């Protein structure tokens, strides 16, 4: 395979800055890869060929000219990136994976997109997702599912299956995702890639179409821990347009990732995130990782978070409640789809009703209805109110756990990638896939998923999740980088080098 597409973002950045390759070559190589494999993978909803190449050429000419402008280029300048189609972009459609916004062009850029433009990363296009980020398999996209590059009959995780699959299939070295209950980390786990949900407020949400405002967070998707750190440092930081964004500077992430170490660190195994419901192959790889960490000088301790058992229940009250309100704006009045009722009077109420009936898919409707009910007078205290109390209890569990451990560790998802369609008719089974990722969203703490190896029973990737206290994102990168290098030393290279070959050259062989 072309080295330009298998390199990490950091490797590309070094080659670009040494003028060994041009950004145009790198960008064109990724566009070619998309042409070659995306018919199979379907990671992209929109490919942004012309603009990406124009930005690449601009970077190349700045670098060629030298001087202050070249010196001022961001380290990632010229490294292409894919954007989850939940994040609004001028000049490219933003659909949120929904018929409701099919063809809609945002007149404004999300804050993270402004930063990406300023740093001159060519944007390759917009990646597929479950509609409005609601799902764990990307099967709820209105535009068809994305497939897992490890096995095209399996799901790439969700909601950010498109971003994870794009990175896993070498269609992009970097991608942006959003994580409300695991939508960056769980796809990372099942595709053998790295995904980080930063501390709530570490990255501006302005321009990320809201699913559940108090849980949503934008974060990086990549093939290495260092690449994720580079991207989070680029897109993070305080934004006056997002009142919930933190004023802390997260500027030690890259150096943490470059100086990975677990020596003397206490790593807490969350007792409740394992056992029943967790696939044996997942647990085996998880135990291997623990052994490796011990061997590298970490102290592995067990911690208990007894209220985590209520996390899924609380999440499925808080998230739909916020969904029911956040998705109210999609009514056909101002933008997006408008459907007129087939018969009867054309009143605004009936037009809104017809539009929402036609524009939203089943999962979106399920959550809107659930949330509307949970917020209703007479039910609010029992549902939304109780769920918020559980949220406080989970935060206390984290506080207690972090008193005993510097970072926490668990499998990212209880299983490897399941088959397309397998859980589509069983929403509860689908929801259970997020059991280990949801507590971090409820508490606002950062979480990182990195590849932990392949499960013995199915040969599919397993994810290891690291969790740190709020604002301590750097700790994740430090521990994540250390574990990554231990694992890759054992494997003799990145896990993705074991993935089957895709595209025209597909032979079924391992490359």
């Amino acid at each position: 395979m072309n080295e330009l597409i298998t390199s990490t973002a950091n490797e590309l950045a070094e080659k670009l800055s040494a003028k060994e390759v041009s950004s145009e070559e790198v960008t064109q190589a990724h566009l070619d890869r998309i042409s070659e494999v995306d018919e199979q993978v379907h990671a992209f909803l929109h490919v942004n060929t012309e603009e990406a190449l124009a930005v690449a050429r601009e970077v190349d000419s700045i670098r060629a000219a030298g001087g202050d402008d070249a010196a001022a280029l961001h380290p990632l300048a010229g490294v292409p990136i894919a954007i989850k189609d939940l994040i609004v972009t001028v000049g490219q459609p933003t659909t949120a994976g929904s018929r409701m916004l099919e063809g809609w062009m945002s007149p404004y850029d999300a804050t993270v997109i402004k930063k990406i433009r300023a740093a001159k990363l060519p944007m390759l296009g917009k990646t597929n997702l479950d509609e409005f980020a609601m799902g764990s398999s990307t099967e709820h996209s209105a535009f068809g599912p994305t497939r897992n590059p490890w096995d095209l009959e399996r799901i790439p995780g969700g909601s950010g299956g498109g971003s994870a699959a794009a990175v896993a299939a070498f269609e992009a070295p970097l991608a942006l995702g959003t994580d409300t209950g695991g939508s960056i980390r769980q796809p990372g786990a099942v595709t053998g890639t790295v995904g980080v949900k930063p501390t709530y407020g570490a990255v501006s949400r302005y321009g990320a179409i809201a699913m559940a405002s108090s849980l949503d967070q934008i974060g990086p998707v990549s093939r290495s821990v260092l690449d994720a750190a580079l991207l989070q440092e680029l897109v993070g930081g305080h934004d006056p347009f997002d009142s919930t964004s933190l004023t802390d500077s997260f500027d030690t992430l890259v150096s943490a990732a470059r100086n990975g170490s677990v020596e003397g660190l206490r790593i807490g195994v969350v007792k409740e995130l394992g056992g029943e419901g967790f696939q044996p192959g997942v647990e085996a790889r998880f135990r291997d990782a623990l052994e490796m960490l011990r061997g590298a000088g970490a102290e592995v301790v067990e911690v208990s978070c007894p209220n985590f058992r209520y996390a899924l229940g609380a999440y499925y009250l808080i998230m739909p409640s916020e969904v029911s309100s956040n998705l109210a704006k999609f009514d056909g009045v101002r933008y997006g789809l408008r459907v007129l009722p087939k018969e009867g009077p054309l009143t605004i109420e009936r037009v809104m009703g017809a539009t929402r009936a036609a524009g939203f898919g089943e999962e979106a409707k399920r959550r809107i209805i659930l949330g509307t009910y949970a917020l209703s007078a007479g039910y609010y205290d029992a549902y939304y109110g109780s769920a918020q109390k559980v949220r406080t209890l989970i935060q206390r569990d984290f506080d207690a756990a972090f008193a005993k451990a510097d970072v926490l560790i668990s499998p990212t998802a209880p299983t490897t990638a399941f088959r397309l369609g397998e859980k589509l008719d069983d929403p509860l089974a689908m929801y259970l896939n997020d059991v280990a990722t949801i507590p971090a969203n409820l508490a606002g703490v950062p979480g990182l998923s990195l590849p932990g190896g392949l499960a013995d029973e199915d040969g599919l990737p397993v994810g290891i999740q690291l969790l740190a206290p709020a604002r301590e994102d750097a700790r994740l990168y430090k521990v994540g980088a250390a574990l990554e290098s231990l694992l890759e030393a054992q494997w003799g290279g990145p896990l993705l080098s074991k993935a089957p070959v895709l595209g025209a050259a597909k032979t079924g062989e391992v490359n």
Partner: protein
Amino acid sequence: MSDPTLSFDEAMEQFDPVLGFEVHVELNTKTKMFSSAPNAFGDDPNTNVNEVDLGLPGVLPVVNKAAVESSIKIGLALNCEIAESCRFARKNYFYPDTPKNFQTSQYDEPIAHDGWIDIELEDGEVFRVEIERAHMEEDAGKLTHMGGATGRIQGAEYSLVDYNRAGVPLVEIVTKPIVGAGRRAPELARAYVSAIREIVKNLGVSDARMERGNVRCDANVSLMPKGATKFGIRSETKNVNSLRSVEHAVRHEIQRHAAVLAGGGTVTQETRHWHEDTRTTTAGRPKSDADDYRYFPEPDLVPVVATREWVESIRAQLPEPPAERRKRLKAAWGYSDPEFRDVVNAGVVDAIEETISAGATPAAARKWWMGEIVGRAKVADVEPAELGVTPEAIVELNGLVEGGKLNNKMAAQVLDGVIAGEGTPTQVMEARGLVLVSDDGALLEAIDSALAAQPEVAEKIRGGKVQAVGAIVGGVMKATRGQADAGRVRELILEKLGVNA
């Protein structure tokens, strides 16, 4: 068809009214409550909007600090407690004037609560109105229904929506139930809204123009049998947007409720629409306490924190409350109750205060403003202060009269000249050749002619009918084209005829 009513007197014989008001005040901040779009009135539709106001996908609100400060000022002026920390909530309902299909509003955590305001009626009776809360929220857009006969949504072919007003900062001031106003309830309603309007204008936080909807009142009315303590069922008359309408709407609702109750019926809990032309209300939508807006705390905003230091620094900068200021000025100027009331009603308190500071006596200031300028403003259909007469000009003009250079009639002409922009009073006087004839020689000549022209009148005066002197004075004034000091003319006539006045 209008609803049956009892007369106001009949209603008052049987029932005690209970009032409650929700007054929405639009703040005059430069930008909107949650976005950087301009907060401006009267521009082309949908020009003062950005992605936040239109509720585009992905947008987030940011609280306008100036609006919070204005809200704290209102709370303090209404003697409220200011919350140290308070949150916004989402009020969820689908309507096309609300771009997000929820309104971001404070709900269970208002920024100001538990205050009061003393309302003085015209005869000096004072009612204390208790304030339950004053909370921050955003205004909705404006719908215009097209194609129907009445401009209402019923029968309209389509509707246009202007989001310029969407997101304009509002403070909603809610009273506790007002009991005990009795037959003065309609007057109190008017006086209350007037007082709120005056307070927010005095604070400088709102343009307070009711005709533009800067101050909008929803009036709640219920009746209970005389002597009862359990409140009756209320109606809420929405958007009563002039002081006069507030008074009439409350009176009408009292009379309408009284007719329903006296006939053994039950008042329907509902909103009512006010009709200025017929001075009646019609039923709106039924309103129950169970209206379900599915409120929950706004997750996109952090709590608004008002530190005690900030609140106290705002309190220290508050202007003198209008009612206290009036009390102080009335005493200082020595006006009688009716004199001062007229000054207040004419809207010239500020003007008189400035004129006195410029050097006029309170009596002179009142004479010029109330006697001359207010009338001219009425004719020109502008506010008196907008006529362009400066306090300095009034002091100068008054000096010319008191110095004997002009008589009142001439001074009035000079004032016209000043208003017409012809210059200072002295410049106008000179340019128009208005010079008081004070040369006794010239006057005596004119007096001789006047006496000769009316010998019978001269006889009467000689015979002791001094009041007849007016006819001769008139002749002299006519002969001098008004430029004589009438007092001096009178003296000279009597002197000449040898009569003691």
